């Protein structure tokens, strides 16, 4: 089986090429080249766009844009992105982080996609064909509606100091694959109660999802053991976790409230 690589200077031309059967976009390649090495017979052509905007990181007035080809390693070492660095550092080992891109993480099936979980909790928007779409829509439609789209980048507001939290739960340390990952952006009211919360979960479905019932239950609560308990009880509502060699769906549902509780009370 022969594999071809096609390079295009523009994202538009690359998008057109993705319409051919067997064509797959090549980001850092940690998942698609692995699929080719494992003998994925459907793969015919790797398509790549070389537009330099894909590699840009811009941070201005608290607004962040990450080009889709930006790697986990460059996010982890960026001086203005320290708030989200833990999520970038949670992906793989050092060599994987030098290759793994933001774009690829948005399409990585569970148990992967730790950084996408963080972006979902940050309410990021994905740039496709010149328009910005909510990340939640992209993640839900990535195997269908957006399967042949190219994400040019993601944008989000830098979280206020201390409002963003991230945890990856794994059995092997330091670089094990996720049992689950959790990201939360929590805005506090002046009276010390939760004004609003966005909680995103990885491995609790085939793509990262929001924990809406828990988010609603947290509003107005103080972050102490008694007051967060109702939200924790609702954490797994509406989820359908994956079962894989790391953990069963049952186990993931059982431990989610424990780990969400630790993250909220930390």
């Amino acid at each position, binding site marked *: 089986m*022969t*594999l*071809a*690589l096609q390079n295009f200077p523009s994202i538009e031309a690359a998008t057109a090429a993705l319409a051919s059967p067997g064509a797959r976009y*090549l980001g*850092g*390649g*940690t998942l698609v*080249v*692995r699929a*080719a*090495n*494992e003998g994925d017979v459907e793969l015919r052509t*790797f398509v*790549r766009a070389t537009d330099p905007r894909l590699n840009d990181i811009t941070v201005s007035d608290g607004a962040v844009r990450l080009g889709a080809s930006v790697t986990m*390693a460059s996010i982890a070492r960026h001086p203005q992105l320290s708030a989200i660095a833990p999520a970038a550092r949670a992906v*793989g*080992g*050092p*060599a*994987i982080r*030098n*290759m793994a891109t933001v774009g690829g993480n948005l399409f990585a099936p569970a148990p992967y996609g730790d950084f996408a979980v963080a972006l979902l909790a940050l309410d990021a928007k994905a740039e496709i064909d010149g328009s910005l779409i909510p990340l939640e829509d992209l993640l839900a439609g990535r195997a269908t509606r957006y399967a042949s789209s190219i994400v040019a980048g993601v944008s989000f507001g830098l979280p206020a100091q201390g409002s963003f939290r991230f945890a990856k739960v794994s059995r092997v340390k*330091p*670089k094990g694959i996720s049992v689950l990952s959790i990201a939360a952006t929590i805005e506090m009211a002046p009276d010390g109660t939760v004004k609003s919360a966005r909680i995103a979960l990885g491995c609790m479905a085939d793509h990262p999802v929001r924990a809406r019932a828990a988010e609603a239950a947290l509003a107005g609560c103080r972050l102490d053991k008694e007051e967060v308990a109702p939200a924790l009880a609702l954490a797994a509502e509406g989820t359908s976790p994956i079962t894989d060699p790391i953990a069963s769906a049952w186990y993931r549902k059982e431990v989610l409230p424990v780990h969400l509780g630790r993250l909220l009370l930390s």
Partner: protein
Amino acid sequence: MPKVPIQLVLNGEERAEFVDSGATLLKVIRDKLGDTSPKGGCHQGTCGACSVEIDGELKLSCLVLAETCGGADVSTVSSLSSDGVLHPLQRAFMENFAAQCGFCTPGMIMAAKSLLDRIPDPTRDDVIEAISGNICRCTGYEPIIQAILTAARANSLTAA
């Protein structure tokens, strides 16, 4: 199979080759360019035995298409010794019994070099993190960690 021309620098030397389209860098380095130091343990990104530096960044050559490396500067563990003089990391691996079968060693040493280039004076945790993408089925890791810490100390003595 269609061939694609590529030009790159391997271990400081300019090389040009026709490679199979879609071939990985690991395959090209070993089968075409004749440097068998990077090993193919899994071809899945899990073992780290194929680790090389591309333009100064540690990467897994089994997951990189050779065609994407045109003009790149690639180094394998073969670049570390010259005229039979070993790099401090190589010497420390030997003296600390950090290699048994040796299959993981080229990748381990490249991961360690990438660490020491960034952090010349690493903590034990830095070392563990740096080799977290590399699997060793023989040594139990402890001798490898000791070797890397020893090489870092040796480097700081020469620098002083």
